[in-house]
C-alpha cells in the first residue's frame, strides 16, 4: 500500500524502508529498548522492520519513521500500532538513541493522533507504557493522555494503559492546556 507522509514543524513522518535498518537495529539492540520488547538481535530487528512495513498492508495504518526536516536523520519509529491480540489501536513512539529530550515523540505523536482521528476516524486511542518507562509516560501526559488501567500482554508483560483525549475534547482546544 501507499504509506502517507506527514509533516510537522520539525519532522517528516514517512514510510519505513530498507535504509532505516541501521539506526533501527542500533536502538533495538540497546538497553533503551527494554521497554518496547527488546533488546533484539540484528536478525530480530530486521524482522521487526519488515513487520512494521507489512503492518501498513494488513491494517491500513502503521508506524512511520520520523526524520528531521533539516538533516534527514531518522529520530524514531512513531505512529499507529495494532497487531493481533493488541487490546486497542495504539499510538506508539520509540525514539532512537540520541534523540530523546527534544520533544520529537510529542510532536510526532500528536501528528499521528491527528491522522488517526481526522483521516481514519478513530473514536479513541490508547498508548501502552511499561512500568518504569518514565520518559514515555511523560510523553503520554504531555499529549493529554491519562492513566486508564493496565493490561498484561503474553509477550510484553504488564503495561500501563494511557487513554488519549477523544477527538471532540481536542476540538475544544483541550490539547492547548498541555502543550
Amino acid at each position, binding site marked *: 500500500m*501507499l*504509506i502517507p507522509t506527514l509533516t510537522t514543524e520539525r519532522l517528516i513522518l514517512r*514510510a*519505513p*524502508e*530498507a535504509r532505516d*535498518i541501521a539506526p533501527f537495529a542500533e536502538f533495538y539492540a540497546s538497553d533503551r529498548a527494554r521497554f518496547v520488547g527488546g533488546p533484539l*538481535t*540484528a*536478525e530480530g*530487528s*530486521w*524482522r*521487526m*522492520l*519488515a*513487520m*512494521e*512495513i*507489512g*503492518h501498513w*498492508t*494488513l*491494517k491500513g495504518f502503521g508506524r512511520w519513521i520520523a526524520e528531521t526536516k533539516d538533516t534527514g536523520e531518522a529520530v524514531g519509529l512513531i505512529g499507529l500500532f495494532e*497487531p*493481533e*491480540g493488541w487490546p486497542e489501536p495504539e499510538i506508539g513512539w520509540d525514539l532512537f538513541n540520541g534523540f530523546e529530550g527534544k520533544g520529537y515523540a510529542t510532536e510526532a505523536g500528536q501528528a499521528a493522533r491527528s491522522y488517526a482521528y481526522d483521516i481514519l476516524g478513530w473514536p479513541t486511542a490508547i498508548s501502552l507504557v511499561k512500568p518504569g518507562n518514565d520518559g514515555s509516560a511523560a510523553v503520554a501526559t504531555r499529549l493529554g493522555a491519562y492513566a486508564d488501567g493496565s493490561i498484561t*500482554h*503474553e*509477550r510484553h508483560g504488564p503495561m500501563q494503559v494511557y487513554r488519549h483525549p477523544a477527538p471532540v475534547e481536542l476540538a475544544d482546544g483541550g490539547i492547548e492546556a498541555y502543550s
Partner: protein
Amino acid sequence: MSAADFSIPVIETRRLILRGPEPEDYPDFKSTFTSYRARFMGGPLNAYEAWMLYAAEIGHWQIRGFGMWMIHDKKTDETYGMAGGWKPAKWPEAEIAWVIWPEAAGQGLALEATHAARKYFYKTGWDSAVSYIDPKNLDSIRLAERLGAVKDPDAASVDGNDVVYRHPSPAALNDTQLAHGIDMEISHYADPLFKPKGYAID
C-alpha cells in the same frame, strides 16, 4: 526500492496463481503457523507471533525486492500455502522456501509453485539459490530433491541445525533432462488420470 513504485509480481502456472500475501489470507497462514505443522519453520507460533511473521513476509518484499508468494488455486482462489524467496538478516544466501497447508499436501502443488518461483528468480537475475531445511523434515527434503537440489555440505547453514540444499543453476534448468522431468512430474499431478501410488508427498 521505494514504497511508491513497488508492487509484488503475479505468477501463473497450470493450476495455480501466486500473489503477494494479502490481509484476507492471514487466517489460513495463522492456522498452519500456530499448528504442529510449523515445527520445522520456527513454530508452532502463538497468534501474536504468527501475525508479526505474516506482516514481516510482506515487508520482506519491500526490503529485498523479492519474497514469499501466497499460492492460490487458479479457479477457486483457495490458498494452498506459500512459496518464494526468503532472506532475513541472518540468512547466508537467498533461500527458496515453501510451506504447504497440511490439507493441500500430496497434489504436487508445492512442487509446481516452487518450480515457478525459482524460474522467476532465475529469470530476474539470481544465479544461485539454496534451501535451508530441518534434517527431520523429510517431506521438504524430498521436495528439494525433486526440484533437483542436492545437499551442499560446504555451504554455511543458518544456525547449524539446518541442512543446506543447493538448487541446480539456471543453466542446469535450461531445456535439460532435469527441467523436463520436473515439468513432467507436475503435468502428471495436474492430469486427473494420474493417480499417485504410495505415501502422499508435497
